[in-house]
């Protein structure tokens, strides 16, 4: 049987603030610690209703609660995070953690109230929250049932929810629908694992954004103890940028691989183009040597002349490429070029040995142009050889028409063929370096070279084409160089 004196004795020795209230809610006893916590003189609270210790807003409701407690007393332990508000004598708010213990003192039902100042604890929590809120990754504290007890501000940037939207919800709200059931199982098995296996290493998983899309995240789980209760701290790092960067990297790798293949094909093509004439010359000269040895002189002169011509043409072609790549800005001498003669000479060389090709020049025979002759020759050679290379075999013959007309201060040259034409989607790339079409050979250099040469002469080149009909190149060259008629 507990007496008032025993209670008083106990209150006297405990360092914990304590209060004894009777069934009417009147304070019967406090200890010095309690009085000092609330800022009262020693014993000043005795005889007062406990509601004096409560904020005004709660006073009325508390009377009802107190009466219910008197009818059905239940022990109330201190619990983590359950703070209530008290008020000091001076009116200052005092966060408290309270325990209520129903007791019988001298045969009367009373209640012992233990109060602990929660200010320091709340400050600590606020400090931890502030630190977690400052973190750039998303952090959640989840209880044993999977309910979100705390989540930092970073969550909003990641999944579109504000922290207050998520508190008290189970973490499955952040899991894509189809994975939720599995996640519940994982979660339970995780919480039943032993300490040693408490950490799951970071894995890439999907989080569900508020708007329904999946966000790639790396998740790390850590088991911790918060105020004596087991909790799991979940750290989520947004991988969206990393995934995008990885995708960009692999796209880049593919692109490089393609470029490499192009470059390989290009060097193969170039080496062929450089080697082929030398091989031809070597073949012709070997024949000449054999003819000389056999004393057969019938074809000797013609064969030697051929070898000489190929060697000269080849040297001139290499010269052209070198001029552009090694001395792009250096201007060569301007000479008068009879356009018609130049076209005829080139055609004779390019179309030699080909059947079913014809040239229809509509160039006035007296049209002479002051320009860098080798550059103009290179342009025309590339355009004419392009027409030959892409001729349409289903047509009885390849026709190339060359036209020239003055347009203001420019000379317009038209090179029109009835070849296979250029597909519309390829047309914009036709002048790109290494742009090759189909398997018709070619190094993908010729038309690029042509454009660069046209630009070197201060002109412009344009193309129009219709698949199956033919292609028309228009080269526009400035006439500011004095034109000689």
């Amino acid at each position, binding site marked *: 049987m507990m007496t008032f004196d025993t209670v008083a004795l106990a209150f006297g020795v405990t360092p914990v603030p304590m209060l004894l209230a009777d069934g009417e809610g009147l304070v019967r006893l406090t200890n010095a610690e309690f009085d000092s916590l609330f800022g009262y003189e020693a014993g000043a609270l005795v005889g007062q209703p406990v509601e004096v210790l409560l904020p005004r807003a709660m006073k009325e409701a508390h009377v009802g609660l107190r009466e219910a407690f008197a009818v059905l007393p239940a022990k109330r332990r201190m619990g983590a995070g359950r703070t209530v508000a008290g008020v000091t004598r001076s009116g200052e708010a005092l966060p408290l953690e309270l325990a209520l213990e129903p007791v019988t003192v001298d045969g009367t039902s009373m209640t012992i109230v233990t109060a602990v100042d929660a200010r320091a604890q709340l400050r600590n929590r606020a400090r931890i929250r502030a630190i977690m809120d400052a973190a750039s990754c998303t952090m959640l504290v989840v209880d044993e049932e999977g309910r979100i007890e705390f989540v930092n501000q970073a969550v909003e940037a990641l999944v579109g929810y504000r922290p207050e939207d998520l508190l008290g919800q189970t973490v499955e709200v952040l899991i894509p629908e189809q994975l939720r059931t599995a996640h519940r199982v994982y979660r339970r098995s995780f919480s039943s694992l032993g300490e040693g296996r408490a950490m799951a290493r970071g894995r890439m998983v999907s989080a569900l954004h508020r708007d329904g899309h999946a966000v790639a995240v790396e998740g790390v789980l850590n088991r911790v103890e918060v105020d004596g209760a087991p909790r799991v701290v979940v750290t989520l790092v947004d991988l969206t940028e990393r995934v995008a960067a990885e995708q960009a990297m692999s796209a880049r790798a593919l692109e490089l691989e393609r470029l490499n293949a192009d470059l390989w094909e290009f060097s193969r093509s170039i080496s*062929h183009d450089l080697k082929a004439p030398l091989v031809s010359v070597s073949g012709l000269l070997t024949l000449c040597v054999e003819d000389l040895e056999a004393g057969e002189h019938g074809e000797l002169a013609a064969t030697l002349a051929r070898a000489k011509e190929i060697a000269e043409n080849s040297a001139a072609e290499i010269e052209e490429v070198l001029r552009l790549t090694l001395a792009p800005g250096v201007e060569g001498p301007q000479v008068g070029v009879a356009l018609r003669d130049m076209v005829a000479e080139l055609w004779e060389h390019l179309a030699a*040995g080909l059947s079913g090709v014809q040239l229809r020049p509509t160039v006035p025979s007296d049209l002479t142009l002051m320009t860098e002759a080798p550059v103009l020759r290179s342009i025309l050679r590339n355009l004419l050889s392009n027409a030959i*290379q892409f001729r349409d075999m289903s047509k009885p013959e390849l026709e190339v028409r060359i036209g020239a007309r003055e347009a203001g201060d420019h000379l317009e040259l038209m090179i029109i063929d009835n070849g296979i034409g250029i597909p519309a989607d390829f047309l914009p790339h036709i002048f790109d370096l290494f742009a090759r079409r189909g*398997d*018709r050979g070619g190094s993908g250099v010729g038309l690029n070279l042509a454009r660069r040469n046209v630009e070197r002469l201060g002109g412009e080149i344009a193309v129009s084409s219709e698949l199956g009909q033919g292609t028309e190149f228009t080269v526009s060259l400035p006439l500011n160089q004095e034109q000689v008629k």
Partner: protein
Amino acid sequence: MTQAYIVDDREVDRYTARRRLAKSGRFTAVHEAEDGRDFLDKLYGAVRTDGEKGPLVLMDIRMPLMDGFETAEALREKLVEHGWPKDVVVVIVSSSGAPMDRQRAMKTPLVRGYFEKPLRGHDVEEMLKLLDAA
């Protein structure tokens, strides 16, 4: 008696091959084609000559429209379709010494040999052996 076809877009190389084949004295006729399609047109446009070996086909690799390998493949299809010329011997004659081209030639149907340009006298002797063995 044997006929030969030279399939090459470079006229000067056709000339060299023509002279080489002429020196051997083995061919009744030497035809020239500047690409694969031209070759197939000429071959199947010709009068079918039974009881002859060959023809021998000298095939360049890099040509417009159809390269040498594609042309050999197309020839095989035509051969299946028309049933002749059963004794055709295709040899690659290319300025390329790339191992890749040699390997591809080995895998290409009907191709029996690979010769690097320029053609020499002994190359033609080699071709004639291939022709006789066929």
